[in-house]
């Protein structure tokens, strides 16, 4: 298997699906002319032309709405939203329109649309270009939410997303575009709702998604040196969520940390922790521990930004505490 970057993986997935199905097209800002600021789409316009790789004006609600209408009428748009932070601008089209059309029409209309966007801080991009807003869309029934953690998942999940008949939101980690990973040359898909056990372990379960999978893996390596065997689980899609895999691991290790780059409060970690607590309560030595990003806007200053998100060190630190039962609140 050759190694390719996450960028290349996304690019390949799109190219393959566009070759397979001529109703697939890409729409967004600077997707053709520049192949996006992250250069993820470079070369696609050369192969598929400006009719299928469509540069838009800076009008996120507009092109998102346009994509919903296109999807309703027989195409499969892949919407490119340059920064995850702009999701606020398209929430109406995504959540009131795309997410609800199938239900409101009693199954007559559907919206096979992919929204490609990103997440992640520590890029010194400040509060409006660093948010991880997957919790917002995960809350809305009708949307599926995929969170690739490497080039392999980026490719497999993207292909599945494009073939899905429902609106799917994919969050890529901005900092991972140049990271390499082995990706098969032959075609493959990754089914939604199937977690990946990235590392087996018996002492503690670390659940992370997207950027946080790597953080959990590095934490597991640190812990392994200390004799703590952490199991690392990557749910890959948070909607649908592979509850079975998560519960199985929780029951096995009886200690869980849920790690996420979105704000901790009212986010992803509360949902996953709650499901574990509800359904594996008597197997747990301690309640599932949550580690989200700090509940603060992302600060620009490197001195502050770096401490707002979970790191391998802080995850390992909490794992140690959980192992030594220090984490249970006093009273």
């Amino acid at each position, binding site marked *: 298997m050759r190694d390719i970057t996450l960028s290349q993986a996304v690019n390949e997935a799109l190219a393959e699906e566009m070759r397979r199905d001529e*109703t697939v097209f890409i729409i967004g800002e600077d997707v053709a002319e520049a192949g996006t600021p992250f250069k993820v789409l470079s070369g696609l316009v050369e192969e598929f032309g400006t009719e299928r790789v469509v540069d838009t004006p800076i009008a996120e609600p*507009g092109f998102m709405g346009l994509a919903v*209408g296109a999807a309703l009428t027989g195409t499969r748009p892949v919407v490119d939203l340059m920064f995850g932070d702009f999701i606020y601008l398209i929430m109406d089209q995504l959540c009131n329109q795309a997410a609800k059309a199938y239900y409101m029409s009693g199954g007559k209309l559907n919206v096979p649309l992919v929204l490609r966007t990103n997440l992640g801080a520590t890029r010194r991009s400040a509060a409006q270009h660093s948010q991880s807003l997957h919790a917002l869309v995960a809350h809305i029934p*009708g949307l*599926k939410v995929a969170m690739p953690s490497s080039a392999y998942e980026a490719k497999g999940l993207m292909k599945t997303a494009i073939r899905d008949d429902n609106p799917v939101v994919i969050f890529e980690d901005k900092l991972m575009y140049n990271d390499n990973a082995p990706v098969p040359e032959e075609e493959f898909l990754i089914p939604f709702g199937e977690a990946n056990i990235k590392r087996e372990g018996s002492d503690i379960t670390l659940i992370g998604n997207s950027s946080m999978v790597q953080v959990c893996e590095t934490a597991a390596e640190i812990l392994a040196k200390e004799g703590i065997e952490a199991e690392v689980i990557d749910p890959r899609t948070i909607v649908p969520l592979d*509850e079975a895999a998560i519960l199985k691991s929780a029951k096995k290790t009886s200690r869980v940390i849920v790690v996420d780059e979105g704000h901790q409060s009212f986010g992803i970690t509360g949902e996953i922790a709650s499901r574990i607590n509800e359904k594996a309560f008597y197997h747990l030595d301690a309640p599932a521990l949550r580690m989200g990003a700090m509940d603060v806007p992302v600060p620009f200053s490197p001195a502050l930004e770096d401490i707002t998100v979970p790191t391998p060190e802080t995850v390992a630190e909490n794992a140690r505490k959980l192992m030594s039962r220090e984490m249970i609140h006093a009273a």
Partner: protein
Amino acid sequence: MAKTKTNTEDYMRMYRQMVRIRTFEDNANQLYLSAKMPGLTHMYSGEEAVAVGICEALTTDDKITSTHRGHGHCVAKGAEFKEMFCELLGKKEGYCRGKGGSMHIADQSNGNLGANAIVGGSMGIATGSAFTSKLLGKDDVTVCFFGDGATAQGLLYEVMNMAALWKLPVIYACENNGYSEYTRTEEIAAGSITARAEAFGIEAHQVDGQDVLAVNELTQKLVARARKGEGPFFMELMTYRYHGHHVGDINREYYRSKDEEKDWKENKDPIIKFRSWLVEQGIAGEDEIEAMNAEVKKDAEEAVAYAEAAPYPDQSEVDMHVYTDIEHALERDTA
């Protein structure tokens, strides 16, 4: 009235469709007043010439997007009374299995992509539908209905810009009925509505929305040109709603006078005007027209009776149609 090249059959169908809309609305209003309808609904009465004049210039393959005031568009684009009343009552045989209701009624088999409860919410959808047509090399045209109030939504300008840049086969049809909810259009729209479209390089027309032939004639021309890639276009249709903003808006004098309402109803009614014209031109006799009216009335009453007796969806449907590939969405929650 403006002349068109349509023949007797076309004229009579237009008349019939206008009467069908009025009759549908009268029945819907009655269902509300007799507390048989869940929730509220927005009546299209008074604006029939707009929906009918436009939709009669479209084929079944052409698409429309509709609004919260959407019964007229739905009927005009070819929908049946029975499925419509079932939907309004939340019954299983409704167009949306009772899940959408009045504000989300959709009839994709006739090209109606659905009513929308978000003012302006379908502007992107209509533009996207036209995008599909162009991308896939089809020749259907999409008409986007919206009200004067909806022109305040920025989304309109975003999608008009793209439609103009990419020459999409979409017609923006602004139904200017003088009000958005309880506010007069002058108070919420600065400048000129047609000039706003023109500023994006879009050809715009203002037309008397009470004259079904004028509306139809203009639409026919624009649709033909849009099919040839000369779109997009913009139409401002001057019209009036007879009822309140919704069926519950009964005492309206604080925002508009009874005289104003009376003037529109008596002197500018699109059905009365068209009926006189049909008779004058010798296209139909009074008897024929009365018979048609009576037939429509009977159809509507039967459909209402049917819908009232029809079953609600089974409770097990509550978590169906959330995802196309998951029969019951809530199953995913159980381990």
